[in-house]
C-alpha cells in the first residue's frame, strides 16, 4: 500500500470518527428531550397548574412549586442583575489594565463554574443558621449568587464590544463619564446585556442543589418568604426519588415544564444576541 493511500485512509477514518462523535452528541439531546416529552406530556393537565402538591397516593398538581420557583427566580434576578451589571461596568469601563480588575475578572470566572452546591452551603451557613430556619429569602440569595457572575461576565463582554469612538465622541461633547456610560455605552450594549440576564435566569430556573439547604420544600401553599417554600427542582427531586407512581408522573411534568422554559430562554437569548449591533 502506498503512503498516499494510507494517508487517505487515515484521513477518512479520523473524519468519520469526528462525524460520528457529533452525531453521538446530538443523539443524547434528542433522546433526553424525547423521553421528557413522552413521559411529561401526560402530566401537563389543568390540575398541574391549579392544585397543590399532593400527599402520596392522591391527585394533585404543582401550583405551589411553580409559584415558589417563579418568586425565588424573580427575587434572585432582581438582586443579581443590578449587582452584576455594576460590577461588569467597573471591569469594562474603569479597570482596563488594572491589577484589581484582573483579579476580580479571574475570581468571577471561577465563581461562574464553581459547584452550585457550594453556594448552597455558603448561604446555609450565613443565612439559615443565623436565622434559625430555612426560608425562601435564603433560596433567593443562593440563586442571586449564581446570577451575579453570569451577568458580570456578559456585561463586561458586551461593553467591551462598544467601539471606543462612541465614548470619545460623547466625551468630546463634554459629557461626564458616568453619563457616557449610562447614555451611550449601556444603550449600545443593551441587547447583549439582556441576553446575559436571560441566560442567567435560564441557569437558575433549573438549579436544585443550592435550594436543597436554603429554601428546602413546602407541601402547602405559602407566600411567606420567611418560611420554607416549595420550588419545582426540589419537588422534582423528592417526587422522582419516591416509590409512588403519582408522584413520579408529577415529577416528569415538572421536568418537562422546567426544560421547556430553559430551552425557550436559551434560544430566545441566542436569537437576541445574533441581532446585536456589535457582534460581528
Amino acid at each position: 500500500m502506498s503512503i498516499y493511500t494510507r494517508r487517505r485512509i487515515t484521513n477518512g477514518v479520523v473524519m468519520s470518527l469526528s462525524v460520528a462523535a457529533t452525531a453521538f452528541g446530538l443523539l443524547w439531546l434528542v433522546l433526553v428531550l424525547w423521553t421528557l416529552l413522552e413521559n411529561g406530556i401526560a402530566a401537563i393537565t389543568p390540575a398541574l397548574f391549579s392544585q397543590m402538591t399532593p400527599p402520596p397516593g392522591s391527585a394533585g398538581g404543582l401550583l405551589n412549586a411553580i409559584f415558589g420557583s417563579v418568586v425565588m427566580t424573580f427575587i434572585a434576578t432582581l438582586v443579581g442583575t443590578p449587582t452584576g451589571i455594576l460590577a461588569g461596568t467597573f471591569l469594562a469601563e474603569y479597570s482596563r489594565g488594572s491589577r484589581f480588575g484582573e483579579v476580580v475578572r479571574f475570581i468571577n470566572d471561577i465563581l461562574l463554574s464553581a459547584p452550585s452546591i457550594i453556594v448552597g452551603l455558603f448561604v446555609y451557613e450565613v443565612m439559615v443558621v443565623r436565622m434559625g430556619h430555612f426560608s425562601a429569602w435564603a433560596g433567593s440569595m443562593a440563586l442571586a449568587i449564581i446570577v451575579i457572575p453570569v451577568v458580570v461576565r456578559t456585561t463586561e463582554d458586551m461593553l467591551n464590544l462598544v467601539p471606543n469612538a462612541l465614548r470619545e465622541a460623547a466625551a468630546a461633547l463634554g459629557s461626564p463619564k458616568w453619563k457616557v456610560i449610562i447614555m451611550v455605552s449601556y444603550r449600545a450594549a443593551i441587547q447583549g446585556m439582556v441576553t446575559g440576564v436571560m441566560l442567567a435566569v435560564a441557569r437558575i430556573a433549573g438549579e436544585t442543589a443550592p435550594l436543597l439547604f436554603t429554601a428546602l420544600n413546602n407541601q402547602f401553599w405559602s407566600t411567606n418568604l420567611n418560611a420554607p417554600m416549595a420550588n419545582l427542582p426540589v419537588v422534582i427531586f423528592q417526587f422522582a426519588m419516591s416509590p409512588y407512581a403519582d408522584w413520579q408522573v408529577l415529577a416528569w411534568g415538572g421536568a418537562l415544564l422546567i426544560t421547556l422554559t430553559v430551552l425557550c430562554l436559551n434560544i430566545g437569548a441566542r436569537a437576541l444576541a445574533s441581532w446585536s449591533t456589535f457582534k460581528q
Partner: protein
Amino acid sequence: MAADIALQRVAGARGRGGAVGDFLFHHLTFLFALLVLLILGGVIVALVEGALPALRTFGIGFLFSDVWNPVTEKFGALAPIYGTLVTSAIAMLVGIPVAFGVAVFITEICPIWLKRPLATMIELLAAIPSIIYGIWGLFVFAPFVQQYIQPNLIDSLGQIPGFGALFAGPPLGIGVLTAGFILAIMVLPFISSIMRDVFETVPAILKESAYGLGATRSEVVRQIVLPYTRIGVVGGIMLGLGRALGETMAVTFVLGHAHRISISILQPGTTISASLANEFTEAVGDLYLSSLIALGFILFVITFIVLAIAKLMLLRLQRRAGG
C-alpha cells in the same frame, strides 16, 4: 465665538455635578466589583468555620479514613473523594474524545450554513438543568444500562483476571459507571465549545500553507491546529473537569448512594456533592453536619485549583493570540 460657546457647555456640564456624579458612579461600580471578591472570601470563611469542629476532631485523618458512621459519629472523607475522582475520570475518558470530534467537525468539516445551528444544539446540552439528566438517568438510562450494557461488560471484560475486578458484581443499572457516563454528556458541551473557540484562533494562513503542501484534513488537525492550540485545549478540558467534579443532582440520582469504596465501577458509590445532597438536611448532630461541610470545603478546594489552572491556561493562549 462658536468655540467659546462649546467650552462654556463643557464647563456647564462639569459644573452641573459632572465631577461628583463621576466620583459616585466610579465608586459605586467599584463597590460591586469588590462584592464579587467578598462573595468568594465569604464562601471560604463560612466553609472553614463550619468545617472546623470536624477537622479538629478527626485531624488530617479525615482525608484518609473511609469510615462514615453517623451512629458512632466517626466520619472520613475518603469514599466520597474517591467517588468524585473516579466518576470525573470516567466522564473525562468518554467526554474528551467526543468533544474533540465535535469541535473538529464544526471547525473543519461542517458546511458554513450548518455551523451555527449545530453549535447551538450542542450547547443546548449544557442548558438542560442537571436535575433533568438525573431523572432521565434514573428512569431511562439506568434500566437500559442494566439490561444491555452491564451484562455484556460482566461477561466480557469482567472475565479478564485482575482487570476484571473493575467490572465485577451484579448488574444494578445505577452505579459509578452510569454516573460517569451521564457526567460525560453534561461536560461535553463545555469542553467542545472551548475547543471550538481555540481552534478558530488558528491563523488561516497556517492551515492554508499545510493544505497547499498537500496535507490531509486529519494531518492539518494533528500537526497544525493541535500544536498551535495545545494550551487552550488543555484549559478547556480542565474547565470541563471542574464542572464534572462539582456536578450534583445528576450524579445523586444514579449513583446509588453507598459510602464505600468498591473496585468495581458497576457498583454504587458516592461523591462529595451527592453525599451533601442526600444527607445534609437529615444530618443530626453538630459533628455530622460539620463533617458534611468539611466535605464541601474539600470539594471547593479541589474545584478551585482545577478551575484556576484552566483559567490561567486559557489566559496564556489569549495573550499569545492578542500579542
